[in-house]
């Protein structure tokens, strides 16, 4: 490994060092309202959850479906609505307002795939959409599978039923 000493302008001997620079630049930072953002995300994310639960209840009561079937149909509906609003171009505007409350639930997963697909549609179905649709969602799928396997193993070793 080589060591980088962070000094700019060594040729001219001015010694603009990282420390000196960051002392000045620390006076000019944007304030990120973390608490407010977290609260907005908590409420908007919670609202999506509430909406999902509402759909399940509605399906169970009106169509006499089992809870697990209703759950599957609910996910399909939510994914469809999220993808449609990405395609119509207002999901990204909602994300800027409602923060990660929309990105963490399944709506965010659908949005990440649809937005990538839209971006690469001009490069064709194979090299464009096919190759890039999992650009963001790929990590979620990979680590989702790994962690599912890991927790299933732990549960199995502890004597539980898979």
């Amino acid at each position, binding site marked *: 490994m080589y060591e980088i000493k962070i000094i700019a302008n060594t040729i001219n001997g001015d010694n603009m060092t990282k420390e000196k620079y960051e002392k000045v630049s620390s006076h*000019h930072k944007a304030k990120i309202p973390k608490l407010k953002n977290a609260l907005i995300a908590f409420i908007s994310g919670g609202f999506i959850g509430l909406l999902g639960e509402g759909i399940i209840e509605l399906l169970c009561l009106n169509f006499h479906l089992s809870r697990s079937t209703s759950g599957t149909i609910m996910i399909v509906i939510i994914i469809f609505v999220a993808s449609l609003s990405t395609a119509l171009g207002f999901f990204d505007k909602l994300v800027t307002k409602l923060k990660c409350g929309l990105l963490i639930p399944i709506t965010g997963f659908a949005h990440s795939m649809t937005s990538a697909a839209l971006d690469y549609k001009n490069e064709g179905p194979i090299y464009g959409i096919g190759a890039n649709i999992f650009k963001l969602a790929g990590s979620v799928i990979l680590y989702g599978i790994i962690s599912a396997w890991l927790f299933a193993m732990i549960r199995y070793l502890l004597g539980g039923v898979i």
Partner: protein
Amino acid sequence: MTFTYNNVYVQDTATVAGPYEKQGPLKKYYDKTLKDLYYNEKSFEKAEIKMVKESLSLLRKKTGLNRKEIDIILGGDLLNQITATTYGAINSSKCFLGLYGACSTIVEAMILGSVLIDSKKVRNAIATTSSHNTAAEKQFRNPTEYGAPKPDTATFTATGSASILLTNEQTDIKVESSTIGQIIDLGQNDSNNMGQVMAPAAIDTIKRHLKDLNRSPDYYDLIVTGDLGKYGKEIVKEYMLKEYNLDLSKNYNDCGVMLYDLEKQKECLAGGSGPVCSALVSFGYIYHEMKKKNLKKVLIVATGALFSPTMIYQKENIYSIANAISLEVV
């Protein structure tokens, strides 16, 4: 490294600005504005290519020169393989050189053009650049429709294309001198705060330009940096005053801050960025004000973050550079 020039003049400029820039305060200075980001094309990249073609053809129309009378085009943009410039500049001049200096490209092109004219190798040269908000977003960040929340320090890539024709025939405005910057690494790696990444390069180049020519900041009516945004701008002012005792409070501004109405256009966050940001302000506002002699001596310091998403993921810093060019009314 600072050069002075004797016989390099600005003949004319041409600017094509995007829909967000159209809502900004400099609207009346642009030659052409777009209604939307697609510009009647199928993709953002093709729209950017069309803007480059449009700005070059506008420049030909304004100067009355045909393709064979233009000796060389120098230019570049942000897309991989500087696609927009190469596809846009085809069949537009006798020869072509593609350049990359990220957002500092336009001044890099003007410096090389001036050197070629000053050394009597060519009679005229076009410097051109472009950028496109969503094309850049797609290449450097997330998909364009993703819209992940960004902090207030992030900058907003400007959409447009701008070109300038430099010539050896005398006009009202001359290219007086230029300073080529060096690559700076001050350990910065926040791609959502490019102002902080690029400010050291701007500080370094401005300081060396003034020192090499033995000038004070007051010599200029206006000193502009390329695309530092509102936070980077303040860093430059404070650092220059504190460390070098150079007061920039009266005549210094940043093109990224000037390009948009940051109070109303909240989506632009800290301000504009991209190669065309400094070019639109310089060839639109500054050029026209110099024509009217409201501004007489201007130093344009285009700042560029030599940003590679690959190197960021490999935990390297973002390097930056700034090139300066001084224009004076004759």
